[in-house]
């Protein structure tokens, strides 16, 4: 209970407290007015909605990092591939993107299983000059995925026009973007599902055990390699879900993956390595602060917010939010 309270307090402080405090300072200094106060609510709402999707991406990456110990630099590219799969099912089979999650998740799960088993597994424990061989392999994989998609679909921008794409519903004067809200709730359900999986099922416990202590887990009879590439596939499946959910609000092109890999990384570092709760908090934080940056600084510097957060966390709080929330 204490942990939950601590998490909620920290979340509340970061997501709501600090932004309003900044507005308060602005109002005291005279540069901001009541208008900005209302704008702040809307900004935070949009930030949390999109933060939910970011959190899903971040959870995928932190799972992979916790168990495999490698940075999956192909994360954004898997997202992009899932978006293409969803696009194809929308264009050729008329399936709504939210329904296509049921297609893209298994698809990418299998692709990631293949990648983990045949490309990443041989590199574990292999002697080489640079220890970062696996990370560099994920760079190569990401490059290949991008180029395969470019080969099939060319570099043209694609988009998906759903009937509800531009609708929004209002609570008071705050608008909730329809596609983003649905995406947020689906992401929420997936996250809850993941938690149940990790806490209650045997495989979930095996994954958590491997993340905590690989050798001890092996001694307990947990098959190392199977769990390792199953986790890679699981993380990628979550990523794929986020991709399907993001398709209605993003233009799709092969080079989409890069910025998302960076975002996933910022979220993982912010939340603390291997911490799923941290990834959720990190995702929401990144969403809110990007939104703040876009509204109050400029659209162009939106991506810079993530980079600045990243460097700040690395410099001042290397353990990430895990240090504060202790989970």
């Amino acid at each position, binding site marked *: 209970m204490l942990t939950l309270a601590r998490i909620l307090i920290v979340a509340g402080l970061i997501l709501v407290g600090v932004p309003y405090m900044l507005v308060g300072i602005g109002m005291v200094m005279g540069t901001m007015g009541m208008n900005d106060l209302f704008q702040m609510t809307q900004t935070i709402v949009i930030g949390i909605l999109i933060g939910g999707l970011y959190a899903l991406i971040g959870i995928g990456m932190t799972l992979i990092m916790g168990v495999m110990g*490698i*940075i999956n630099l192909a994360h954004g590219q898997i997202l992009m591939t899932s978006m293409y799969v969803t696009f194809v099912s929308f264009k050729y089979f008329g399936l709504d993107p939210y329904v296509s999650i049921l297609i893209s998740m298994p698809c990418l799960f299998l692709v990631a299983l293949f990648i983990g088993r045949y*490309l990443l597994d*041989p*590199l574990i424990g*292999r002697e*080489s*000059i*640079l*220890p*970062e*061989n696996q*990370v*560099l*392999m994920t*760079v*190569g*994989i990401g*490059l*290949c995925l*991008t*180029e*395969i998609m*470019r*080969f099939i679909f*060319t570099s043209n921008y694609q988009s998906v026009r759903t009937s509800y794409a531009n609708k929004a519903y209002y609570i008071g004067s705050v608008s909730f973007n329809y596609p983003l809200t649905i995406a947020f709730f689906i992401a929420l359900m997936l996250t809850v599902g993941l938690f149940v999986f990790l806490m209650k099922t045997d495989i979930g416990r095996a994954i958590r055990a491997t993340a905590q202590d690989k050798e001890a887990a092996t001694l307990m009879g947990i098959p190392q390699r199977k769990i390792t590439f199953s986790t890679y596939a699981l993380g990628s499946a979550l990523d794929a879900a986020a991709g399907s959910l993001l398709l209605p609000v993003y233009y799709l092109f092969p*080079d989409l993956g*890069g910025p998302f890999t*960076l975002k996933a*990384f910022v979220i993982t*570092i912010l939340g603390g390595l291997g911490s799923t709760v941290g990834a959720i908090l990190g995702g929401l934080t990144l969403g809110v602060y990007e939104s703040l940056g876009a509204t109050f600084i*400029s659209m*162009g*510097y939106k*991506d*810079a917010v993530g*980079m*600045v957060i*990243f*460097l700040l966390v*690395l*410099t001042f709080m290397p353990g990430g939010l895990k240090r504060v929330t202790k989970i």
Partner: protein
Amino acid sequence: MGPIFVFILAAVLPLVVNHDYYQHLMILVLIWVVIGSSWNLLAGYTGQVSFGHAAFFGIGAYTAGILNTKLALSPWWGMAFGGFTAIILGVLIGYLCFRLRGPYFALATLASGEILRLIANNWTDFTEGMVGILIMQTFVSKLPYYYIILCIAAGCIGVIYLAMNSKLGYYFVSIREDQDAAASLGINTTLYKNVSLMISSFFTGTAGAFYMNYMGFIDPSVVFSLHHISIQAILVGIIGGVATLWGPAIGALVMVGIQELFRTAVFGLAPKWVSQGHALAFGLLVVLTILYLSNGLVGDWPKIKKVLFRKAPQETS
């Protein structure tokens, strides 16, 4: 003897192949030799894998460009100053990032490169933003450019050779192998990491300034690009062989060669769709190299020789 022969060969080559397109390819190869070798010094020899070398390339290029647009200096002054601005940037990035190890360092450099790209994109008063900088090229023929970059590349490899064969080389490798053990022996690891970074950034910055002079046009998405500069530098190093002197040079040759081979559909011999897959071919090559030749083409040359010349009789001793 070997390197001098290679240098003479490289010097004579553009006179023999007197075609603009091939000379352009050779200049590109040489630019990547410089960038790849610089990255290799920092990453392969000193063990600090940087994902943000585009920062140094870009700042060299922008130094040349901005000196031209703002101060009306010839962009060749940028060649002299580009390296030094890159060193200053390098010291700054080193100060921020060297406290981190391994993958964290890699990502911190990645973030630095991206921040610089975003600054260059948005600080339109200073850098012209996304419009980029356009200058008049000094020479019409490609030959002078070729010889300049050849000298830079030779200088780069020469300096790396001298550094690695001196005590500096031992310091670098000791930091790569075990930083804490090196520190416990009394080696000032921060100082030597910075020295490595300064040499690396100097040459990358000079290559950037050269790029500005040669291409005549730069913009943030080209010179500060994560995918086209930073990651390509890493891939060039990996394919050629990290921690070898000639690895990145071979890697540059392979990278440009394979991509051009596919882009021209094997010079017109293969079907048209092959040209769509030029980057894919390179990507597949990278994956296969990491899987089977983890020390690169040069580093794993004994392994390649063993496979190619398998028929040679083995003497049992």
